[in-house]
């Protein structure tokens, strides 16, 4: 009985709730439906496509076109490369200046015409200076690259967020006049939130990258930068020649640089026993050439990484961006023919921006790989000087 009572009570409240919901829904529908004639009147009063065109043309005049279409002309490549190099050089100098005595030492080493002989006869102290310079320069270059990249990603994500906001605003207006179900409006909202979160994450990374640079600035007593004056330049064309594989490259370099006799001599010197008659040995080399070999292998690996990064960057920049542009143009033409709607057109632009972020990542990886390769080249040179096998 008690159960029945509760059950009945529950049923009653349920019925009340249903009535309430139906009434609310009817009221809501009426509110929305009552806006319908007004919505039609409003779009008529807005003046149609000519009025919107006027509005757009005014806005276009006021703001830049933000599409990421990097100029692939040699002049533009040279300019962006110049800006980027200057930026790196600036911060290298700042970093060197912050190391006590490092910059004067390097300048004294490299002053005048540095000949092969001078490098070959470099003293232990000179090697130490160079090694210290490398220890300082390599992370610094990577920090500069990360900073430029973070700045660009943040900028792209700001634009992507604006686009997502437009898409959501459009969805909201469509839903308001009954043209779009709530689910799709919410999906547009969720997409905006996701992009906003990604932008916030990128902002944090940008702050982090800027802080790394700022530390160098503070050490050197120069102004802390607020933004990078450069963008990641496009990789140079044509591509470097194809590699023959890491191991063969390393071995080839050893064979080219160290004549067989010299290798044997080094090997013998390292394992010299005055009682033992010098002889040509087969089998493993001494530890010193192994150290050289490891440097060569590391260099070959860095070159391999650079080549792969260059391939990826070339692919995305030289072909990918052009293909993406055609896709976007075709979307616009399809929109003109009412073959797709505005939401899909905005989605295409969003996808294009996502692709641009992929391109930026490839550019960053290319410049990182290039920096690491350059660093490894310097390391090999130092090893070669040490072992007396420099060319």
């Amino acid at each position, binding site marked *: 009985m008690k159960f029945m009572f509760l059950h009945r009570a529950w049923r009653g409240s349920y019925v009340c709730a249903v009535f309430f919901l139906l009434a609310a829904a009817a009221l809501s529908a009426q509110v929305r*439906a009552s806006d319908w*004639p007004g919505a039609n009147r409003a*779009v008529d009063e807005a003046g149609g496509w000519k009025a919107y065109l006027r*509005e757009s043309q005014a806005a276009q005049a006021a703001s830049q076109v933000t599409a990421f279409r990097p100029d692939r002309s040699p002049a533009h490549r040279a300019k962006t490369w110049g800006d980027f190099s200057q930026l790196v050089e600036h911060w290298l100098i700042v970093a060197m200046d912050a190391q006590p005595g490092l910059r004067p030492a390097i300048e004294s080493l490299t002053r005048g015409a540095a000949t092969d002989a001078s490098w070959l006869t470099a003293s232990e102290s000179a090697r130490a200076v160079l090694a210290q310079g490398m220890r300082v320069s390599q992370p610094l270059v990577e920090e500069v690259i990360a900073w430029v990249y973070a700045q660009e990603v943040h900028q792209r994500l700001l634009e992507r967020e604006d686009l997502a906001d437009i898409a959501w605003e459009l969805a909201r207006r469509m839903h308001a006049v*009954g043209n779009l179900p709530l689910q799709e409006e919410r999906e547009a909202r969720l997409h905006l939130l996701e992009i906003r979160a990604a932008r916030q994450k990128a902002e944090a990374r940008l702050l982090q990258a800027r802080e790394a640079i700022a530390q160098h600035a503070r050490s050197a007593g120069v102004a802390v930068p607020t933004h990078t004056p450069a963008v990641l330049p496009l990789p140079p064309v044509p591509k470097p020649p194809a590699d023959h594989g890491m191991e063969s490259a390393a071995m080839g370099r050893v064979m080219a640089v160290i004549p067989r006799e010299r290798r044997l001599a080094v090997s013998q010197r390292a394992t010299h026993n005055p009682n033992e008659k010098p002889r040509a040995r087969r089998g493993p080399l001494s530890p010193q050439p192994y150290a050289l070999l490891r440097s060569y292998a590391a260099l070959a690996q860095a070159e391999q990484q650079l080549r792969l990064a260059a391939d990826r960057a070339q692919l995305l920049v030289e072909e990918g961006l052009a293909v993406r542009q055609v896709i976007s143009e075709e979307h616009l033409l399809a929109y003109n*023919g*009412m*073959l797709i709607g505005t939401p899909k057109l905005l989605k295409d632009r969003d996808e294009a921006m996502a692709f641009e972020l992929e391109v930026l990542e490839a550019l960053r990886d290319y410049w990182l790989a290039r920096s690491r390769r350059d660093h490894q080249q310097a390391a090999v040179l130092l090893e070669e000087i040490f072992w007396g096998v420099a060319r």
Partner: protein
Amino acid sequence: MSQTRRSFLSLAALGSATLAASTVGRSALARLPEPVMQSSAETQAPVVPNAGRPYRPVVTLNGWTLPFRMNQGVKEFHLVAEPVVREMTPGFRAHLWGYNGQSPGPTIEVVEDDKVRIFVTNRLPEHTSIHWHGQRLPNGMDGVVGLNQPGIPPGKTFVYEFTARRPGTFMYHPHADEMTQMAMGMMGFWVTHPKAKHPLIDDVDRDFCFLLNAYDIEPGSATPQIMTMLDFNLWSWNSRIFPGIDALNVRLNDRVRIRIGNLTMTNHPIHLHGHEFEVTGTDGGPTPKGSRWMEVTTDIAVGQMRQIEFLADEEGDWAFHCHKSHHTMNAMGHDVPTMIGVDHRGLAARITRHIPDYMVMGERGMADMAEMEMPLPANTAPMMTGSGPYGSVEMGGMFSMVKVRRNQKPGDYTDPGWYQQPPGTQAYLYTGALPAVRQAPVSGGGTGAQTPSKGPSGQVDPVEVRVRKPNHSGGHHGH
């Protein structure tokens, strides 16, 4: 949309070819008739027979009639099944399969009891056959591959022979890989004229014919999607879409017959403005006179033929179209959301910042699109287009006009131009004071009447339209 003097000259050449073919020597008769090819998509004037029994020939809308030769009392035709490029409307070409240079193939005209021999040469990459839709004929001539005959292999010629036993309106199409070959445009019209005065077949002054067909050609491409079952995007008459379909030009008080065959995958309610007509014939032949009634729309089901007749006694340009409104549109996006009533103020400029050539469309309906004439994907017909004397006709697909003119000469099928309405016979703008209209309640079946717009609609707006066009491939002008 107009027949030219050139098309009549080419017709004259065709007639000459027919005459020459009908008088060739015995040795030549032992060979295949030389196939006659057609390179134009314009309506060709009727071919008056030079041999055999006389008849009043038909006019095939945006098509032509295949010449024949008489060979010892047999009418011989030569159809060549082959890939063709069909201009479906100016600026839009389709890669189809057809006959003798066009899709659909040429109309075949014979007379009741004619002995007919049709050579069919296959220049397609796969086998084919021809089914003579609606004909009484020997079972082995019915054209169903595997059932009545083996397929005609590529490069081979088969011969069909039968007697045209009953007068009426017929069609022909492949019955081999049928869905593919029909989706690619392989079909044609056949008319068998009565051998003598027929009690159910009246004389007419003009006799038109055309096939209803449909394609699914992705905008920006040229070849139909052959696996499409129902969701076609181009609804055509004789593989032409408006504004590429010629008008049916007649003289005031002409008795007009229009024969229509449906080889699409759905029915078509064909509607004529300004006149009433009777259905005087179906797939089975002429209808009994007692079964006819006046109507303005007749539904033609899949695989059916209908012939309608009317007295063209009202001057003017009268719309003539399928009454399924999406069949009077060209390719459109089926997933495009409705934008009606969505105010874009403040948004258009923001979108333009990201997509510089973006233009707002659809918030007041779709008619803006026809007015704006924006560049489209290559080889794409605008969804709604066509210029009339008062602006865009905003149509596409299965739409044309019957143009009735007092001074159209008998036998003259040329386009007379736009009709000039006599003063006082055209809808006009009310310029008096408008009463205040109170907003109708939204529930209870109110009409939702609106107050008159105070906006700039209809005003001359001097905005300069600057449209940047993509420059990667060019040729993207859909208009």
